[in-house]
């Protein structure tokens, strides 16, 4: 346990001083995006991994957060930073509506309903031009020139998200969530209001995802519906981050975010310019292969199957007793 704490503390210090040591904007940008994905992946994991309600529509909450911040700035002239708070709250309200509709369904039907929800809201955002400017998107002016401020905001958001989920999972809410995942009818028979607690889980999850969306608006300064409501780049990526890192583990999505954003960037840049250009087209294929590999060999993700990885890859044998 002591060793674990030491590891976490040194990791924390590493991230705190990282942008002060590495001045390259490129690497700073990558880590900022990773932190954002830590938030989205962890939120998805709370709902899907711990509560067992697999969402294929987390782009709904990401996009609503981003658009809240964007519309605040473009239509109302209020700083997009207010969107950080209100984006989370609006996402939560949208989450409540999604829950009201979709939690009538269970298992794969719930997943399909959220998938449809994501597409519906993407089309709304595309066509409701008086509010969202449609495909033109929303462009704002970045508040900070240097990446340093964004870096620390993203880090704080990621830590707050992980810490909140950790506290929730140690509280009685956590037990309620897991019992709903394990057996919803049995949980209801034991007196748990399963509809209420599924919604609680969804609201916490959508709140943080919405904050990540609002952060994205502030940081990238440009959004359009195809980016922030994207099925491929947001909803599916959220699932991949969760599955690769480890479903229903606290640190899994954080590890997953590093792996997935790292891979995506490696392919996008054609192995940092070392490989021929066409490689960048292959990233979807590689994601697919990775998912197959993870499901076959690491069904619990990198963090969930860490003991197995240690055993097989590093050939460390547990001490025989």
């Amino acid at each position, binding site marked *: 346990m002591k060793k674990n704490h030491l590891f976490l503390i040194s990791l924390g210090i590493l991230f705190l001083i990282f942008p002060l040591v590495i001045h390259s904007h490129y690497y700073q940008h990558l880590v900022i995006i990773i932190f954002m994905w830590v938030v989205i992946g962890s939120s998805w994991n709370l709902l899907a991994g711990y509560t067992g309600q697999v969402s294929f529509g987390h782009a709904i909450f990401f996009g609503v957060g981003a658009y809240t911040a964007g519309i605040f700035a473009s239509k109302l002239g209020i700083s997009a930073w207010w969107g950080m708070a209100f984006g989370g709250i609006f996402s939560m309200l949208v989450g409540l509506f999604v829950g009201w509709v979709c939690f009538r369904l269970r298992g794969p039907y719930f997943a399909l309903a959220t998938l449809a929800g994501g597409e519906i809201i993407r089309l709304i955002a595309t066509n409701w031009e008086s509010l969202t400017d449609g495909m033109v998107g929303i462009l704002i002016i970045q508040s900070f020139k240097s990446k340093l401020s964004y870096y620390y905001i993203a880090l704080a958001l990621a830590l707050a998200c992980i810490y909140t989920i950790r506290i929730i999972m140690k509280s*009685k809410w956590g*037990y309620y969530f*897991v*019992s709903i995942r*394990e*057996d919803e*009818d*049995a*949980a*209801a*028979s*034991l*007196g*748990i*209001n*399963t509809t209420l607690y599924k919604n609680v889980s969804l609201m916490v999850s959508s709140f943080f995802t919405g904050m990540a969306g609002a952060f994205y608006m502030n940081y990238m300064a440009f959004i359009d519906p195809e980016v922030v409501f994207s099925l491929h780049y947001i909803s599916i990526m959220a699932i991949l981050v969760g599955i690769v890192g480890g479903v229903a583990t606290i640190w899994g999505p954080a590890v997953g975010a590093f792996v997935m954003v790292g891979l995506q960037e490696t392919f996008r840049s054609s192995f940092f310019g070392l490989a021929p250009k066409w490689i960048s087209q292959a990233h979807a294929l590689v994601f697919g292969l990775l998912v197959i590999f993870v499901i076959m060999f690491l069904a619990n993700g990198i963090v969930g199957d860490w003991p197995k990885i240690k055993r097989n890859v590093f050939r460390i044998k547990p001490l025989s007793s």
Partner: protein
Amino acid sequence: MLKVNGINVFYEDLQVLWEVSFEVKEKEILVLVGANGAGKSTTLKTISSLLTPKTGTIEFNGIRLDQLPPNKIIGHGIVHVPEGRRLFPEMSVEENLIMGSLYGEAKTQRNETIEYVYSLFPRLQERRKQMSGTLSGGEQQMLAVGRGLMSRPKLMMFDEPSLGLAPILVQDIFDLIKKINQEGVTILLVEQNVTQTLAMCDRAYVLENGRNVLQGTGQELMANDHVKEVYLGI
């Protein structure tokens, strides 16, 4: 104590219970017997509000249960030990037990009840930190019963507690149910194991194709020609 009055229950458009009525009296062991698909489990699920009857009422000590959501039933002192145990496999034995005592009196008396459950099942105490999914079938059934006891019920409903257990364990489970009954808990038991259950019960109802067809004391039913022919094979 529990009065089921003429319930008609449907899965979507398919009717599975037709005017089923019965009464459970305080402190007795009542058994519902019947073949596969007779509607025994459906009856228990309806009492637990996991299903809602289209017509008919369910009353428990004068309180209507049929319109309540499933999570409110346990608060009235009814607990359902479901078919196939339905534990939380990735929770430990102790966590499963705690999940049985979330509200009200059961929560304030949690520690004493856990001690009581462990005294009934020393095996569970030995394995209290183990994931419940890794227990053997018999141990899982003990845990399901223990989890039910944790809510300090007035009425316990068992759905096929003998399912998948070795014959020697089946007798243990029935002895245990008798013991729980002797401590003042009313029992509603659903079983296919007709011989053994009719021998131990106070009264029984026979369900066939979703309808009550017979009722009487265990002895009466064992002597009944229809029961003999269809269920006992004599």
